[in-house]
C-alpha cells in the first residue's frame, strides 16, 4: 500500500533579476515581472514512494531540494511537471510554530493550527489536554503566544503536530530546535506515532536522528534522487559530498603554514569518517611550512550542526609546542574513547603561534558521523571503568583513617 508517490516530479522556480531593473523604468520592470526569468530547477524527475506505515527519511545538503519536496507534498506549491499522489490526510510541520498568530493565546492557536490541517473543533477539543501537557506549558496556555519564550513556542508547535494525528505526517528539521530533553521527548513521540502505524516523512540534517527514526531514506542531490535505501548505506555517500572550503577571508599576510589535509582513522586504523561514541578516533593533520616558523600549536575543532563548538583537540596540552620547520610535516591526535554523542560534526583545523596569533585555518575540512556506541545519558560520554567493590565497613574505616592521617 503506497501512501505517497512522486512520479517524475520536477519543480522549476523562476528567478527574476530585480536588481538589474532597479534603475529601469516601470515598463521594463513590468516586463521583467511578467516575462521569462532565469530558470532554476529545484527538483528534477524525482521518483519515490512512501509505503503505508513507513517512516521515510529525506537527507541532503542545503539546496538539494529537500524542502521543495516537502512543500510539494504539503500542497503548498504545485509541481512544474509530474504527478504526486497522496492517500490520506496530511499534516506538515515545516517550521515549528510558523502558523501561529502572535496575538492569540496558546489555546486559541491550538484550534487554529488544528483547523488548518482540516480537523474539526470537536476532534481538537478531545486532544487539547494531551497537547498542553506534552508541551509543558499549562500555566501559560491562556497567554498570547507572543509572550512565550522561544522554547515554549517550539514545544507547542511540535506538540500540536504530533497530537493532531493526521494519516501522513511531514516533519522538517523539527529536531533542530529546542533543548536536549525536549528533543528526546520528540524522538520518543515520533517513534510512538510510527509504531501506531502512521506514515511519516522525516527531513533532517541530523543523520543520527534519521538513522534512529527511519527504516529507509532517500538522498537528494541538486534536485535529483542520488540514492535510496537504509540510512546507514547512504551516510557515506552523504558525507563525501561535503567539500572542504579553505579560509575565504583575505590573507592577513602570506600564509607561511598551509594545512594540506585532515584525515581520520577508526579503531582498526582504516581511514574513515564514521565513528562511534566511546570508541577510538585518530586524526592526522598534514601541513607544509614555507619557512621556519618555530613553535606552533595545532587545533582541531569539532562543531555540531548547530555551529556550536563541541570539543577540540589541541597540540601542546601535555607537552611543549611543536617546532615547525620549513617543508612538509604531519601530526597525529589520538583519542581512545571519544566523548561526542551521536550526530554529525564538522571540523576546522587551525595552526597558531603560542601567543595565539593565527597562522592558518582550514574551515569545514571534514565532516564526521558519530554513531551510537557506548550509549550513556547526558550531553557527552566520559570515559570510565567500573568494578564491583567487595570490601565492607572495615576497609572504608581504614580509608578514612588513612585520609585523616594525611590531614
Amino acid at each position, binding site marked *: *500500500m503506497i501512501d505517497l508517490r512522486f512520479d517524475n516530479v520536477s519543480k522549476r*522556480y*523562476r528567478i527574476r533579476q530585480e536588481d538589474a531593473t532597479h534603475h529601469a523604468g516601470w515598463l521594463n520592470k513590468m516586463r521583467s*515581472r511578467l516575462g521569462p526569468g532565469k530558470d532554476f530547477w529545484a527538483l528534477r524527475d524525482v521518483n519515490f514512494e512512501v509505503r*503505508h506505515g513507513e517512516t521515510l527519511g529525506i537527507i541532503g545538503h542545503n539546496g538539494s531540494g529537500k524542502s521543495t519536496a516537502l*512543500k*510539494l507534498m*504539503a*500542497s*503548498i*506549491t*504545485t*509541481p*512544474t*511537471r*509530474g*504527478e*504526486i*499522489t*497522496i*492517500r*490520506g*490526510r496530511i499534516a*506538515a510541520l*515545516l*517550521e515549528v510554530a*510558523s*502558523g501561529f*498568530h502572535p*496575538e*492569540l493565546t496558546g489555546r*486559541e492557536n491550538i*484550534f*487554529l493550527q488544528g*483547523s*488548518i*490541517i*482540516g*480537523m*474539526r*473543533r470537536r476532534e481538537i477539543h478531545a486532544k487539547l489536554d*494531551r497537547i498542553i*501537557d*506534552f508541551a509543558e506549558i499549562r500555566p501559560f496556555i491562556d497567554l*498570547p503566544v507572543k509572550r512565550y519564550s522561544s522554547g515554549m513556542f517550539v514545544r507547542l508547535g511540535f506538540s500540536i503536530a504530533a497530537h493532531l*494525528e493526521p*494519516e501522513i505526517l511531514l516533519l522538517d528539521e523539527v529536531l533542530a530546535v529546542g533543548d536536549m530533553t525536549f528533543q528526546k*521527548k520528540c524522538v*520518543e*513521540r515520533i517513534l*510512538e*506515532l510510527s509504531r*501506531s*502505524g*502512521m*506514515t511519516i516523512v522525516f527531513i533532517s540534517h541530523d543523520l543520527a536522528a534519521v538513522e534512529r527514526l527511519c527504516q529507509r531514506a532517500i538522498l537528494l542531490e541538486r534536485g535529483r534522487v542520488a540514492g535510496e535505501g537504509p540510512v546507514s548505506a547512504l551516510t557515506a555517500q552523504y558525507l563525501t559530498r561535503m567539500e572542504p572550503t579553505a579560509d575565504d577571508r583575505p590573507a592577513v599576510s602570506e600564509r607561511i603554514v598551509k594545512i594540506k589535509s585532515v584525515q581520520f582513522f577508526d579503531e582498526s586504523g582504516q581511514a574513515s569518517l564514521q565513528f562511534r561514541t566511546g570508541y577510538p578516533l585518530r586524526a592526522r593533520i598534514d601541513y607544509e611550512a614555507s619557512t621556519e616558523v618555530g613553535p606552533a600549536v595545532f587545533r582541531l575543532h569539532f562543531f555540531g550542526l548547530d555551529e556550536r563548538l563541541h570539543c577540540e583537540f589541541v597540540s601542546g596540552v601535555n607537552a611543549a609546542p611543536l617546532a615547525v620547520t620549513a617543508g612538509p610535516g604531519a601530526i597525529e591526535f589520538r583519542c581512545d574513547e571519544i566523548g561526542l554523542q551521536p550526530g554529525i560534526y564538522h571540523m576546522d583545523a587551525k595552526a597558531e603561534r603560542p601567543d595565539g596569533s593565527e597562522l592558518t585555518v582550514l574551515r569545514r575540512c571534514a565532516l564526521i558521523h558519530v554513531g551510537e556506541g557506548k550509549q550513556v545519558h547526558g550531553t557527552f560520554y566520559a570515559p570510565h571503568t567500573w568494578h564491583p567493590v567487595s570490601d565492607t565497613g572495615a576497609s572504608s574505616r581504614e580509608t578514612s583513617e588513612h585520609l585523616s592521617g594525611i590531614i
Partner: protein
Amino acid sequence: MQNVSPTLAPTSVPDARSTKVIRPPVFNPVSILRRLGEFKAYTDLFLTLSLHRIKVRYKQSVLGIAWAVLQPVSLMLIYIAIFSIVTQMPSEGMPYAVFVYAALLPWTYFSTAVSAATSSLVSHQQMVTKVYFPREILPLSYVVVGIFDFIIATSVLACLMIYYKVAISFIILWVLPILLVETMFIVALSLLFSAIQVQFRDLGFAMPLIMQLWMFATPVVYPLSKVPARFRSLYLLNPMVGVVENFRHVVLQRMSVDVPSLRISFVISAVLLLLSYAYFKHKEATMADVI
C-alpha cells in the same frame, strides 16, 4: 511522562482514506470550479480564522468594538460639515445626517472589507509559504469581519432613525438581497485584488486612492438624482451605485427597490465573481513561490 503514552488509536482504515493527486496547474475552468467542494472541508478553519480575526482586531485596541462605529460616524460628521453646513447638498427631503449615514453603512462595509482583503495574502506570508489550506479563506475572513462591523455600525443608524423619527416598513426587508449583491461584489473584488497584490504590491499602495475616488463615483454624499441623465447609463455600471442607492431607498424612504439598477449590480457582480474565482484559483497554485 505518562501524558505521552495514552492509548493511541491506529490510524483509520486505509481504504477509507481520500486520495489526492497533485498535477501541474493548467487553466481549466471546470476543474477550478470543482475545487469549490474542497472549501467544505475547511469551513471550520474559515470560521475559526474569522472569529480570531475579530478578536485580534479588538484585543489590543483601547476602544475595541467602538472602532466599527467610529469610522462611519466620523465620516458622517465630516460630510455633514461640508455638505450640510458649508454648502447645501440636496438629500431628498431627509435630514442630511441620516441620509449620508445610511449610504456610508454599505460603503464602509465595501471599502474596509476590500482594502483589508487586498493585503490579506501578503500579510500572511508566513502561513501561505508554510501550510496548505484553500487560500481564499484569508481574503474571505476579512469579508466576515466587514459584515461584523456592518452589524455593529447599524446600531447608530437605528439611533439616528429614531431621533429623526424616520418610519420604516416591510420594504426594509429588501436590504437582505441588496446586501447579498454587495457581498458578492466584495468577495469578487477581494479575490481578484488579493491575488494581484501577491504579484504587484502597487495595488496595495493605490488602494486608499482607489477607494476615495470610488466613493465619489458612488451616490454616498449626494443622491443619484443629481447625476446628469446623459451620464446615467455609464454611471450605473458601477455596481456600488445600485447597492448604495437602493439601500438608502428601502431603509429611509420606504420606496420599493429600483430593480433595473440592482439587476445591473447583480449581473456584473456575478460575472466578476466567477472570473475572479477562476483567476484566484489559477494563481493559487504558485502563490507560495511568488509571494
